[in-house]
């Protein structure tokens, strides 16, 4: 039963909601300011449709891997490739995913070798099954021995040393190296590299935090900075951790400056504003893009990027002097 009065009341309610919705619009910020990123619309290759599996050790939800994946997707779109992305941070589980890709008879495999010993068996199986395998991001020292054809990434110890040397030049005396995934070989290698590059300039101390729980990351770093006032630099190994470390430094009232490995959209803003001094960039988008594009070249034309040698995508420094050239791409979410 609908009486005229209840209809009128209903209309009034609708009008009120609309008015609220209009008032609720934000005049700036939000999705409306994002530029559309259409990096993959430059036409599509006319080669046969290949299926390629990309298997990483991503801890689900990390912004770094989002960039790798975007690069891979852009290449897949251009090269007429069906991309199957899967991930597991646990070595043996990642090996199972590689095995699944072999079972699925994919045309090519792109894999990260963060835990090379665990992956060795599965990668060899793929090579024996005549599936071309390229590696990205991690496994710089092991990829050749496994029969992998190409590698795209940076040398974590070299990157760490570069960071350590720069810190020494800047006159730092005590550096805190924040490891956000306890037990991760590549992260430990970075901190070891920082220590080596820093040399006799002062002390490098490691701090373990749990990246799956940001509030605890913040409080752990804050506590450390309150406890040890002599720390003048905090180096984090991932962009989200750097942004949290900035808050910790403010909260603790310490004078420590924050520098980091890897970037994301938020971090570019932090470098611009001076909250984060600089970042070491290994170009994750490029790693993902090249891994897929190189497989396409290999499958369609037998080409090998790097001619059997490592293709380094980093390290390079991003600081206030060159931030503007990176910023426009970061806005689109591709740097």
């Amino acid at each position, binding site marked *: 039963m609908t009486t005229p009065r209840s209809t009128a009341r209903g209309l009034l309610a609708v009008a009120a909601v609309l008015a609220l919705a209009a008032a609720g619009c934000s005049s700036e910020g939000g999705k409306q300011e994002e530029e559309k990123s259409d990096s993959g619309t430059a036409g599509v290759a006319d080669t046969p449709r290949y299926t390629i599996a990309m298997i990483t050790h991503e801890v689900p939800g990390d912004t770094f891997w989002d960039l790798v994946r975007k690069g891979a997707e852009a290449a897949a779109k251009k090269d007429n490739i069906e991309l199957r992305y899967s991930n597991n941070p646990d070595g043996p589980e990642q090996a199972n995913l590689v095995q699944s890709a072999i*079972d699925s008879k994919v045309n090519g495999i792109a894999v990260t070798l963060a835990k090379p010993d665990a992956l060795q068996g599965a990668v060899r199986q793929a090579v024996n099954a005549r599936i071309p395998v390229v590696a990205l991001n991690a496994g710089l020292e092991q990829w050749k021995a496994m029969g992998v054809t190409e590698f795209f990434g940076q040398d974590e110890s070299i990157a760490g040393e570069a960071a350590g040397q720069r810190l020494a030049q800047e006159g730092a005396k005590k550096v805190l190296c924040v490891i956000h995934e306890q037990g991760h070989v590549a992260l430990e290698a970075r901190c070891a590299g920082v220590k080596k590059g820093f040399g006799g300039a002062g002390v490098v101390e490691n701090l373990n935090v749990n990246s799956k729980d940001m509030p605890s990351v913040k409080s752990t770093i804050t506590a450390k900075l309150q406890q040890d006032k002599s720390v003048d630099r905090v180096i984090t190994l991932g962009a989200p951790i750097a942004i949290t470390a900035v808050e910790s430094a403010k909260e603790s009232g310490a004078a420590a400056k924050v520098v980091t490995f890897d970037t994301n959209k938020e971090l570019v803003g932090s470098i611009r504003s001076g909250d984060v001094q600089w970042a070491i960039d290994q170009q994750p988008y490029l790693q993902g893009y090249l891994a897929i594009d190189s497989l396409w070249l290999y499958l369609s034309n037998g080409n090998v990027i790097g001619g059997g040698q490592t293709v380094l995508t980093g390290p390079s420094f991003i600081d206030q002097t060159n931030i503007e050239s990176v910023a426009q791409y970061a806005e689109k979410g591709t740097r």
Partner: protein
Amino acid sequence: MTRLLARPELGSVVGMVAIFVFFFAIADPFRQATSMGTVLYVSSTIGIMAVPVALLMIGGEFDLSAGVNVTASALTASMLSYQLSLNVWVGVVASLLFALGVGFLNGFLVTTTGIPSFLVTLGTFLMLQGANIAVTKQVSGQVATDNISDMDGFDTAKAIFASSFDVGSVTIRATVLWWLLFVAVGTWVLLRTRPGNWIFAVGGNVDSARAVGVPVRQTKIALFMGVGFCAWFMGMHRLFAFSTVQSGEGVGNEFIYIIAAVIGGCLLTGGYGSAIGAAFGALIFGMTNQGIVYAGWDADWFKFFLGVMLLFATVLNMWVRRLAVRR
């Protein structure tokens, strides 16, 4: 027929068939025999642990330290052998004692203090998790153990814990056979022996079990040590399959073992369940795990789909059991 319908594992069998048919229909690679080899392997790595965990749950207790105990055993064997340059079999035996010791400690603390096993094993879980990383870094200076594949005894140990053989085009891993054996032993103990009756008794009602003369304390300690034994076995598999061990691994797996046991018909309250059911539970988990990948579903949704599948299997399980009881 009625007896068959009243078995705890019946629901999980129906669930397993349903999941199998589902992925068989939608995922092309799932239909190949070679893929079955991978599915069975993944299932076996869960299933070997699900057997003692199911027995423990029937006995009325939980073990949250099961997942990290796997890693702890592998680390013990690996570091002991490498640092002292011993035959790896020395490390294998020493780590067996270690894993059984952890099981004994769990059982001893639970039966002596009367604190719920959920809390006691949560404590040992956290202790082991910390010790795994701390001791590994202290001893080997890094977070993973050194490669032991060129040491004496490695090949024989690998043959036992981590070998594989081909049947036609299908690669069958040794763990699958061990899994079958463990399930058979678990089922036999549970259904055909006196300790089996004791397990049901202590899980059902401790006081009346004690009143009729069941050795409650020994039974529970033995159950915890059973979990320790299988954790050792899986640890050895991980070590000899991959030659090194990452100290941070294994966290979270304890819940997967419990889930497999529950899908297989174990009650969270104890006193009811089966070892075969836990095997089907592990198989459901393994098929879902791999099936989602074979189907090529978006990896971002992986955990979501996994949750939906498990919920589906559990609800089906409950429904079938209710039908069976109604008869």
